């Protein structure tokens, strides 16, 4: 029964319900307009107050002056100019102190009221570094005293930060657009009440109150239009973020490169180099023995040959780790096919890549797929893996699927996050679907132009 009524009301809203909806909208509009007025009104209020009282004060200096009109006019002009300067200084000081909290509050409101997520790209306050010369570098200037450098960095991060400058623009734009509209409905209401209680003006007062009520649900909405445009990150901040990202990628790369070189050096030093020394020694022994004891010399030479074979084996596995031979000879597709043949699980490889990509991309893709196949066999305990290599609109794609247990994560320090970082260095990415219980589908894409 209850269900039926509720459905009926949905189809044909009762006047009571409609009124209640209106009431909610109006109340919300008044509340939001009031919040916005408070938030955006701070700076103009300070400016207006300083302007008003400043003018009164300065104008009082020359008010008792008895001089020709032109001179008095000139004096009043000078006094007003001074008052204007006070306004500028007061507004600037308010901005330095409150600009960031006010803008951040506006961002939070935009998120809560309109669902628009607006991120801010404030630069962190640069760390102080003491230079060999004894001066302090705060990211902006060299200063002799540490305290002064710290103060200056704090100030500059509020004034010179591109995002802070954008915040100033936001406050300026908002105080001529959002503020008047939001304030208008409030003014209608409060003004209307004031007028209505004056004797003889009840009608006018009621009209003003009605206008304020009608306006209030719409009054705050300008905020939703203006906020995303002026509160968003400054394009320069975005560039800064990109620079940070690239810097960390570069640091990763140099790190990887040096560990890789170290590994190769150790491999050569402990492996092939040591074996060659042993080989040389055995040859020397054989040389001495050859006349006196040919049989013993033969034996020594046989061990020398065995040692050469081992050295070659070691070099081979080292080379395989640096630049897999099939990759060098045939390119990434055949290299992955060769890998599939040697894998401990069934791997099916399909490819629609028409030509060989550039070497660095080829190598990165190869080692990535190699790691993914190993993961599938080792961690996902898969028995069947498929690899598809494709190329479309200047993007090289590798899709690796397995029938394993799933549950792979890109958590920090995992193999997948390492792959993701290596791919990021080439402008590529790694996407993953791996529900617990499997199957796992991993897509690696990297931008690449094939000739």
């Amino acid at each position, binding site marked *: 029964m209850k269900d039926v009524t509720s459905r009926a009301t949905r189809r044909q809203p009762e006047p009571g319900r409609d009124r209640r909806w209106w009431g909610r909208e109006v109340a919300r509009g008044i509340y939001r307009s009031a919040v916005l007025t408070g938030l955006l009104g701070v700076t103009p209020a300070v400016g207006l107050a300083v302007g008003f009282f400043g003018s009164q004060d300065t104008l009082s200096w020359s008010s008792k002056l008895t001089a020709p009109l032109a001179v008095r006019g000139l004096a009043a002009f000078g006094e007003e100019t001074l008052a204007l300067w006070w306004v500028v200084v007061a507004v600037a000081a308010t901005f330095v102190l409150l600009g960031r909290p006010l803008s951040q509050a506006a961002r939070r409101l935009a998120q809560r009221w309109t669902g628009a997520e607006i991120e801010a790209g404030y630069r962190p306050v640069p760390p102080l570094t003491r230079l060999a010369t004894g001066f302090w570098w705060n990211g902006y200037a060299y200063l002799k005293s540490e305290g002064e450098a710290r103060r200056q960095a704090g100030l500059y991060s509020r004034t010179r930060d591109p995002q802070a400058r954008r915040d100033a623009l936001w406050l300026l734009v908002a105080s001529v657009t959002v503020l008047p509209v939001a304030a208008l409905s409030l003014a209608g209401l409060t003004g209307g009440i004031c007028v209505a209680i004056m004797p003889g003006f009840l009608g006018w007062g009621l009209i003003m109150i009605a206008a304020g009520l009608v306006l209030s649900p719409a009054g705050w909405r300008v905020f939703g239009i203006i906020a995303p445009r002026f509160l968003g990150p400054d394009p320069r901040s975005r560039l800064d973020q990109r620079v940070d990202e690239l810097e960390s990628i570069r640091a990763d790369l140099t790190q990887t490169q040096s560990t890789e070189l170290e590994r190769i050096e150790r491999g050569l030093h402990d492996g092939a180099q040591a074996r060659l020394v042993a080989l040389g020694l055995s040859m020397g022994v054989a040389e001495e023995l050859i006349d006196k004891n040919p049989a013993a010399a033969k034996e020594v030479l046989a061990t020398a040959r065995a040692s050469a*074979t081992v050295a*070659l084996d070691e070099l*081979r596995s080292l080379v395989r780790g640096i630049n897999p031979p099939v990759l060098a000879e045939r390119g990434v597709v055949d290299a992955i096919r060769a890998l*599939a*043949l040697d894998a401990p699980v069934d791997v099916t490889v399909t490819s629609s890549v028409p030509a060989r990509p550039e070497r660095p991309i080829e190598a990165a893709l190869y080692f990535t797929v190699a790691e993914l196949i190993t993961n599938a066999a080792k961690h996902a305990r898969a028995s069947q893996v498929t690899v598809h290599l494709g190329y479309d609109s200047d993007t090289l794609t590798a899709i690796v699927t397995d029938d394993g247990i799933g549950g792979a994560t890109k958590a920090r320090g995992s193999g997948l996050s390492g792959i993701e970082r290596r791919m990021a260095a080439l402008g590529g990415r790694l996407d993953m679907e791996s529900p617990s219980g499997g199957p796992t589908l991993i897509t690696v894409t990297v931008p690449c132009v094939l000739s």
Partner: protein
Amino acid sequence: MRVVVAEDLFLLRDGLVRLLQAHGHDVVAAVDTGPAALSALIGEQPDVAIVDVRLPPTFSDEGLQAALAARREVPGLPVLILSQHVEQLYARELLADGQGGIGYQLKDRVLDAGQFLDAVERVAAGGTALDPQVVSKLLGRPSRADPLAVLTERERSVLALMAEGLSNTAIASRLYLSEGAISKYTTTIFAKLGLAPGEDTNRRVRAVLAYLDAGHDSP
């Protein structure tokens, strides 16, 4: 035997030529690039060719490509491929035409002159000489749908040595068994893999091929 050698490292090429000549073979051409290898293979049609996988000008798999191209022109042309590394992928490509006369060995094997010359002669006679490393890779893979599952452990090891290209006598001495026993094993293997009786060498090659196709489709 008339031999063509294609190898770009001068020392190794020179060493191979000396080794072959010392054992009474006639080296009709010793070349150092892929295109030169192809024209020598087709032009000379030697009894056996020894070809390095990686050759100038591109240092990719030019030697292998030259050998495959020459065998398309001259089916069954005996070729022994040498490489610093051995790959299942290349072994499958070489054996795919089922003609025999294929060798695929690590360069290290040259260090043992006796075994190396033995491999050269086997290939020249139309047999196979696969490097033990390739064979172990080919065998090493457990597969769910494995037609070789019908073979016993002992039969598998006999098949692996057959894949390397060894004769029954050589297999017998390797496994410390009598030649007669090996002969019985090979007959069982041929029967189990469903290979019709025929010329022995050819059948051995086919057994190896059946073995390669086992378990998974070639890529």
